[in-house]
């Protein structure tokens, strides 16, 4: 499959067409068609490439394509002397990136189709601009997942950051939207700093930036289980990068604010592109991470804490999109937990299933917002089930999936993560299960408040202007005054239905062995998370031969993965028990939500009043934004002011002082000039004047006087000549 590089190029072409021509001259419809066509073509090509990939033998599933040399060989210092630093435009299709391109192009295409209807009320040029950005987003994301070295990945990595900025700030006239865009971009830049430091360190260490070469080289190195060595630092830096892109503590703050963008953008950022980049990158460097167990611990802890914290915030939010945003942060936390406990395929699997149901939920919420003419506050919704049955049905499926009800997709992926967390660390498992309870609760709270109960929104005639809705982007929906909530048009419901099917069946690829399933996806993805087999074996031989004591003392996580099939740590009955338990937890969450928000809504009011303190803490998102404001942002401002003061007083002072010195010295110089130099000149003149006054007396003009003097002179000389000689 030599043409995998076309997969990112197609959306890139769409972005170029819409950006260069479309904004000026395309109609809304043309712009949408161009963008959707390009994404559809990319999807078709991806499916074909994936089908070809499946045709290869299991341990040789990879296509490497280099289309051009980007950076020619430059001598650069590495650990092993001067190496030739070179970067090709190289693309690699292997099981992990294969799965990713299907997610990006598949869900991306559906979101593009959805956007054609959702954005129908925008100004004409704005629609083309929007589709240009969407296509560009997919282009960079595909570059990110298909690149075969860190630098090509970095191109995509930066590109999705740029596109998130452009899209979150799409309604740039709105202050909050442009602020949110800046926040996303700046937060991401902090993460990018970590990522690029990691890449520098990798080149310094291995002398190459090719993923495969780095993984193979790392596989032969000892596991840094006791000391915090170079590999650990590399992984730590890469993980900092991942926290920025994938919204983990401490850099998750941008993601909830990203809700300022149009809803399809939220869906795209949360499901198909952007936030999955960090998870993907950690998975891509799985071998590095397995050699740095301490960083794995950090990853797992950060992941599970993020999951818990975000889920708890999600419990009390009223903005429908914000609930989903915190839900995404929480689910990403799960993925990192999985990565941290060494369950890379489980994390990637959850990434895929999450992409389906989260895209579904976001597009569904977009449909609701569309129906409510821009209203996002769930307190003004309710009872929408009868007005928009398709949206309700599909969102309900998505909710069941994210809550982890079998046999929907979320169950299998989440349960795999919980099981692996249980194997690795019970404390992490406990927090993860608590998060699962909260997930089920807040998702059913969302569904209950939106679709069930009585309608609480504005009356039909009073239309959309009743409350200043934060997402009030159009007012009328192209058909005059608002006629009450209504089902969305087909281009919006079709993606919902397609994604609902995905949310149902996506889990079937990962039925675990405990349920007599083949766990297809794990076996499929496994080659991407290990070094090439002969190198991995050699690495294990080195590790186990006792040459390096610490490596031999503790078994590598990699060997755990390998040995697990032969002798599972936890028996099958325990695994089944855990599954049952997590289903019970999910049902409990659903039951609680039903009790609080459907059968007896007064309980939730009472609880909120009874626990006012914690409720306020959660409503204000643990005051993290305020904390960052008070520390980092104020610190930056103070630093800026300090630098300004330094500039004002020290630098300007030096300049002014230099000027002042010049003035002083010039004054002295002038004084010297006036007195000494002019004095000398005047003295000469004065001497000439005074001298001439006396000598003038000699010039009588009387020739006889002269003659007399001459005679006396001659007489004197003759006398001297004759007598004195």
């Amino acid at each position: 499959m030599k043409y995998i590089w076309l997969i990112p190029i197609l959306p890139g072409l769409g972005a170029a067409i819409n950006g260069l021509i479309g904004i000026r001259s395309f109609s809304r419809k043309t712009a949408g068609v161009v963008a959707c066509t390009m994404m559809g073509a990319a999807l078709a090509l991806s499916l074909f490439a994936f089908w070809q990939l499946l045709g290869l033998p299991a341990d040789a599933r990879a296509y490497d394509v280099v289309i051009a040399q980007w950076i020619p060989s430059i001598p650069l210092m590495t650990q092993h002397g001067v190496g030739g630093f070179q970067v090709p435009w190289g693309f690699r299709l292997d099981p992990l990136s294969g799965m990713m391109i299907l997610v990006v192009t598949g869900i991306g295409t559906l979101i593009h189709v959805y956007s054609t209807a959702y954005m129908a009320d925008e100004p004409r040029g704005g629609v083309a601009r929007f589709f240009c950005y969407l296509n560009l987003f997919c282009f960079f994301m595909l570059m990110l997942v298909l690149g075969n070295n860190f630098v090509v990945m970095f191109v995509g990595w930066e590109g999705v950051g740029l596109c998130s900025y452009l899209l979150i700030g799409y309604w740039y006239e709105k202050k909050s939207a442009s602020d949110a865009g800046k926040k996303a971009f700046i937060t991401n830049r902090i993460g990018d700093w970590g990522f690029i430091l990691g890449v520098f360190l990798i080149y310094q260490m291995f002398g190459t930036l090719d993923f495969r070469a780095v993984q193979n080289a790392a596989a032969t190195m000892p596991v840094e289980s006791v000391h915090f060595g170079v590999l650990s630092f590399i992984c730590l830096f890469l993980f900092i990068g991942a926290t920025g892109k994938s919204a983990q503590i401490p850099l998750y703050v941008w993601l909830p604010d990203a809700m300022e963008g149009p809803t399809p953008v939220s869906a795209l950022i949360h499901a198909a592109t952007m936030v999955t980049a960090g998870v993907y990158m950690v998975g891509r460097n799985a071998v590095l991470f397995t050699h740095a167990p301490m960083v794995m611990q950090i990853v797992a802890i950060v992941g599970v804490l993020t999951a818990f914290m975000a889920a708890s915030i999600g419990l009390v939010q009223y903005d429908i999109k914000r609930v989903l945003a915190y839900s995404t942060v929480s689910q990403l936390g799960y993925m990192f937990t999985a990565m941290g406990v060494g369950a890379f395929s489980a994390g990637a699997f959850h990434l895929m299933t999450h992409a389906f149901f989260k895209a579904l939920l976001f597009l569904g919420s977009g449909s609701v917002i569309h129906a409510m003419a821009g209203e996002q506050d769930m307190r003004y919704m309710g009872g929408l089930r009868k007005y928009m049955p398709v949206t309700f049905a599909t969102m309900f499926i998505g909710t069941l999936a994210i809550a982890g009800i079998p046999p929907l997709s979320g169950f299998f992926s989440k349960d795999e993560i919980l099981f692996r967390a249980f194997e690795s660390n019970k404390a992490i498992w406990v927090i993860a299960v608590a998060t699962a309870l909260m997930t089920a609760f807040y998702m059913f709270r969302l569904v209950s408040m939106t679709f069930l109960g009585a309608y609480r929104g504005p009356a039909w005639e009073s239309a959309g202007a009743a409350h200043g809705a934060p997402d009030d982007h159009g007012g009328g929906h192209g058909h005059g005054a608002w006629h009450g909530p209504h089902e969305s048009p087909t281009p919006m419901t079709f993606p919902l239905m397609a994604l609902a099917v995905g949310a149902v069946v996506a889990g079937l690829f990962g039925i675990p062995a405990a349920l007599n399933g083949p766990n297809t996806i794990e076996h499929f993805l496994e080659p991407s998370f290990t070094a090439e087999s002969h190198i991995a074996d050699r690495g294990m031989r080195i590790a186990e031969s006792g040459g390096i004591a610490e490596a031999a003392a503790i078994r590598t996580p990699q060997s755990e993965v390998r040995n697990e099939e032969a002798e599972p740590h936890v028996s099958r009955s325990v695994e089944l028990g855990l599954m049952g338990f997590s289903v019970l937890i999910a049902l409990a969450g659903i039951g609680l939500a039903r009790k609080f928000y459907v059968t007896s809504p007064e309980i939730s009011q009472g609880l909120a009043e009874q626990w006012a303190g914690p409720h306020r803490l959660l409503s204000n998102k643990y005051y993290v934004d305020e904390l960052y404001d008070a520390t980092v942002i104020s610190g930056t401002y103070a630093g800026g002011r300090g630098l300004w003061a330094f500039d004002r007083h020290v630098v300007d002072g030096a300049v002014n002082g230099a000027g002042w010195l010049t003035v002083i010295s010039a004054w002295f110089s002038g004084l010297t000039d006036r007195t000494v130099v002019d004095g000398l000149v005047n003295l000469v003149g004065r001497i000439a004047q005074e001298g001439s006054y006396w000598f003038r007396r000699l010039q009588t003009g009387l020739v006889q006087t002269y003659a007399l003097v001459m005679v006396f002179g001659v007489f004197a000389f003759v006398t001297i000549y004759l007598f004195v000689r």
Partner: protein
Amino acid sequence: MPITTTHYILLSAALFTIGVVGVMVRRNIIIIFMSIELILNAVNINLIAFSQQLQNGIGQVFAIFVIAVAAAEAAVGLGIILAFYRNKETVNIDEMNVMRS
């Protein structure tokens, strides 16, 4: 008593002295002019006397030159004096100060 070179020299010195004093003390430009002639002739006597003593003709030739130059000088000088007299009606040297600024 034979006339020796010494006598000539003394005569010449006397003539020269008379000429110089005449140049210095008189105010009449014509007298001064005549005194200058005396000085020149004193020089001539001197030249002739030493020419005689040294038995060398060059001194006599030189005297002839001096006489010729003195004649030319007399012609120019008398012309100037004549022109001056026509302007100023005087030959007093104290009045000859037209070039004084």
